[in-house]
């Protein structure tokens, strides 16, 4: 079991649906991340939150909307997604932003867009 919990594990949605992915950690970490991973590829960074504030947006389309309601919770709101958005979405956290900290990953949400 990982210390970063992501729900749901699987999600199938149509292109007109609105859904949200949830990520939770109770390790007191203050930096949280969203990644997108396609099959047989490395994770690609999407967003970084540091102390509940968005610090990095890697030019992600606006159909992906992140939210950090508190230090333990990270959401990713989805709307009007495209079939190419089908992927594994990973959440990660670490103690604080900065280079010398390992990231702790959840097991991801497998997203399929019909």
């Amino acid at each position, binding site marked *: 079991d990982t210390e970063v919990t992501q729900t749901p594990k699987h999600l199938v949605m149509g292109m007109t649906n609105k859904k949200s992915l949830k990520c939770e950690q109770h390790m007191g970490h203050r930096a949280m991340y969203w990644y997108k991973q396609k099959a*047989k*590829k*490395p994770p690609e*960074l999407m967003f970084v939150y540091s102390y509940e504030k968005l610090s990095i947006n890697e030019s992600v389309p606006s159909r992906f909307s992140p939210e950090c309601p508190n230090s333990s919770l990270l959401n990713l709101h989805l709307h009007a997604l495209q079939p190419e958005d089908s992927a594994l979405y*990973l959440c990660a956290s670490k103690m604080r932003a900065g*280079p*010398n900290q390992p990231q702790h990953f959840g097991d991801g949400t497998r997203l399929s867009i019909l």
Partner: protein
Amino acid sequence: SQQGEEDPQALSIQEGENATMNCSYKTSINNLQWYRQNSGRGLVHLILIRSNEREKHSGRLRVTLDTSKKSSSLLITASRAADTASYFCAGTGNQFYFGTGTSLTVIP
């Protein structure tokens, strides 16, 4: 753009053999990390080596770092079937980025 590359892309070995995978990166780093990803799971942090270190050990893992060549290697000794996974290097500097990954299969 991809900042790190690993080779080989895929590696298949017998249980008990050693596995070596290499990582090359483009930009300067504060440290280099290695992660493992089992099929359908998230990534697990294995080891971190700082830019002023040349070699580090953790159990059956040995990591080397050559900042002049912008390269690192991960050696897994006495491999086990449970080591079957994808392995990613990750450079941390002004950016954090993953390498392309090596898929390791250990045959029992």
